[in-house]
């Protein structure tokens, strides 16, 4: 028995050392394990894909029950919102035609047409340590690293890792997410910096800021990885704080389907971040 125990102890110690070594190498070069990660993810994708259907159905059922409960108030609120939106639509149509006329006068080159790829969310890391989701589309569907992911209401994040049939979206709220944005009517430049909370921070704001809660935040397209003008969220000022944060448009929604927008831009991500398989 003593021999068995000491053998067991050294196995545990060895495995702890090995894990520490793996972390250390990963810290020195975060891209080393990317292929391994995505191979594991690709293998798990069919299973996660299968089981995410009943999970989504269960979630929808609960959401439906809640809606049913609040149907009366919801209806009234929606009718009011509908009226308001109809007025906005008239305004938007006017602006759109004016915009087209002005563009025509300026001979402005149109933006490159976007290509959309739609995927289903099959995995969610759980949110406590990282903010990322897995989707069931990968290189074989034309997904590339760095492209923007959106849902019906706004920017979700960008593709951080691509496998053959799965890929990982780093959400804007993740600690590692940095996205160049424009804020408000004055179009101040800033960086939307995630910190794992639901509301990312606005970093690198100019000294004299003319930004107020309620201002719209859109992607700026600086750095070239993202198309410009994607809606991101609105500026908020949490109670008890001087700091400005952004409430993303997407976060109140259930995340089931996402669209990846490929504008053919690779920008700053091109050389350093692309693995051999992505090139």
């Amino acid at each position, binding site marked *: 028995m003593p021999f068995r125990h000491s053998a*067991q102890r050294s*196995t*545990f110690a060895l*495995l*702890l050392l*090995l*894990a*520490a*070594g*793996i*972390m250390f190498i*990963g*810290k020195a070069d*975060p891209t*080393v*394990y990317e292929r*391994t*990660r995505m191979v*594991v*993810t690709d293998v*798990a994708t069919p*299973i*996660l894909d299968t*089981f*995410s259907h009943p*999970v*989504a159905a269960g*979630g929808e059922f*609960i*959401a439906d029950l*809640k809606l049913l409960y609040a149907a009366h108030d919801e209806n009234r609120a929606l009718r009011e919102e509908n009226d308001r939106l109809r007025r906005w639509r008239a305004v938007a149509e006017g602006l759109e035609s004016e915009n087209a006329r002005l563009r025509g006068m300026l001979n402005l080159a149109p933006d490159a047409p976007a290509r959309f790829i739609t995927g289903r*969310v*099959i*995995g*969610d*890391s*759980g*949110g*406590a*340590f*990282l903010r*990322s*989701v*897995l989707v069931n589309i990968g290189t074989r569907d034309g997904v590339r690293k760095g492209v923007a992911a959106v849902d019906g209401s706004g920017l979700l994040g960008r593709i*951080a*890792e691509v496998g053959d049939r799965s890929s*990982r979206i780093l959400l804007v709220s993740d*600690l*590692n997410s940095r996205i160049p944005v424009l804020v408000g009517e004055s179009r101040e430049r800033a960086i939307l910096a995630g*910190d*794992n*909370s*639901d509301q990312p921070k606005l970093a690198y704001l100019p000294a004299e800021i003319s930004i107020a809660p309620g201002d719209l935040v859109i992607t700026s397209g600086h750095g070239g990885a993202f198309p410009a003008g994607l809606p991101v969220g609105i500026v908020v000022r949490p109670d008890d704080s001087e700091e400005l944060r952004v409430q993303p448009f997407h*976060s*109140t*929604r*259930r*995340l*089931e389907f996402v669209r990846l927008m490929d504008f053919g831009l690779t920008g700053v991500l091109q050389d350093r971040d692309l693995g051999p398989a992505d090139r």
Partner: protein
Amino acid sequence: MKRSSWQGLDTAARTVTPTLLLVALVLMGQLPYSLSGHASVTPYFVLMGVFYWGLHRPDLLPAVVVFLVGLIQDALEGEPFGVNAFVLIAVYWLVVSQQRHFGGRPFLVVWAGFAAAALIADILRWILVSLVLGAPLAPWAIMLEYFMTVMFYPVLTVAFALAHKTLPRGESGEFVD
């Protein structure tokens, strides 16, 4: 005692049960449970499996398996590679070394033991992820995750115990409740 090959196969299949359960727990932890308006926080399912089998049948769960399962969790979750492998091995070691203190004790004691192990696991995980990413993570979501992990343990224990009953008897020194 001579056993037929069928019996041997059956025993082999049952012997890998804890391993398969751990893999299933990792996958369970990845499914998107998010409900509208709620940030999604998923319990640390795989930790529950490591604790349970470390306590009851460590003979059926080699440390290398726990290590590999930790790496799978890292890969799927997108966490820095090695973090979960480290945390799970540390907890497994702790549980196996404390195993004899839990033999025949009421479930509440075991549950309290799990709460302590999960606390150590989450603090360790928080420190390691923060170190590798180079910035301290906000602790609130992790506290919520910890709370949910502890609350879910009794539910999962029922499932583990059912699987446990089908397993062949262990060597001397293992206790089965």
